[in-house]
């Protein structure tokens, strides 16, 4: 469609991005709520019991979305950090910084829900199994990224140092993902595979996918909220920030 193309690069400037992100946040909250209610309804009220695991298996509707998000957010964070490092885009480095705490939260929730699932199924909260250990390393990578960035006063240097750490840590993601195949782990294999049809009941699968979508929308909403704060803080010397705050920005 000639003539209707939008100049997307315009939104790469913090000034254009700030109000746009503010308008998008409520929509992502709404989507997160709709997907979350639907997913939890299917998972906790409709889905039948699991023949082997009983009702404890329902932790899957929290554990799998949290684990997926912890890995996915890391890849997105490393992507933005790498883009910032390579091209010096201000906004992409800020995006990486904004994603790290939410990624760390999902890594923690993955470990927490996993421990509460492991206890009734395996008889232990924790084992030094490849899947669990590599997920713990993921949490440490997030914490390391946050600590490293906050230890460096100059934001541009903090961006660079964080980006290098984030990019090196990417190697951990395939290790987590394939650990259940590569090693003989106590952790069960993938519940959903791209290559073969799912081994679970349809309601279970839909419940899990909807919960994952809800977490995804949640992560976007929260990351946008945080990146707006980072933009304001870092651009506070500019005229546009004064203009925005003079214009009665209250929230």
């Amino acid at each position: 469609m000639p003539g209707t193309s939008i100049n997307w690069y315009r939104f790469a400037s913090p000034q254009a991005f700030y109000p746009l992100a503010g308008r998008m946040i409520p929509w992502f909250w709404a989507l997160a709520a709709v997907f979350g209610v639907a997913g939890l309804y299917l998972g906790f009220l409709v889905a039948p019991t699991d023949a082997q695991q009983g009702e404890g298996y329902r932790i899957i509707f929290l554990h799998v979305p949290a684990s997926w998000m912890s890995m996915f957010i890391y890849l997105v964070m490393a992507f933005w950090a790498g883009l910032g490092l390579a091209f010096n885009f201000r906004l992409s480095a800020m995006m990486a910084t904004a994603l790290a705490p939410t990624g760390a939260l999902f890594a923690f929730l993955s470990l927490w829900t996993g421990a509460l699932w492991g206890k009734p199924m395996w008889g232990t909260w924790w084992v030094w199994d490849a899947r669990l250990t590599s997920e713990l390393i993921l949490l440490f990578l997030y914490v390391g990224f946050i600590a490293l960035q906050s230890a460096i006063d100059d934001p541009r240097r903090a961006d660079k140092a964080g980006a290098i750490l984030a990019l090196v840590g990417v190697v951990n993601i395939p290790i987590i993902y394939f650990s259940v195949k590569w090693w003989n782990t106590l952790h069960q294999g993938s519940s959903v595979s791209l290559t073969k049809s799912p081994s679970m009941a349809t309601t279970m699968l839909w419940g899990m996918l909807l919960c994952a979508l809800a977490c995804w929308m949640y992560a976007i909403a929260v990351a946008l909220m945080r990146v707006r704060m980072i933009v304001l803080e870092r651009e506070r010397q500019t005229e546009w920030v004064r203009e925005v705050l003079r214009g009665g920005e209250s929230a």
Partner: protein
Amino acid sequence: MMGIYWNSFAEFLAMGHHGIYVWGAVGVMALAMILEPLLLVRGQKALVARLQSQFRAESRDNSGDRRADRPFHSEGQH
């Protein structure tokens, strides 16, 4: 197929003797996903208020009002 699986609310709560594990997972995840956005809303409000008062103080200083009680720029400008 879309009917409710449980026969009673008590059965739902008990989760077949796995209640403590299931609800422990639900509770902490819900808490985290409520607290994080609440803290961000609070942080944004505090940041906006801080920057606004900083800008007000600067424009007072720049408008030539020498009665201002601070002779120099504050808050690490430049």
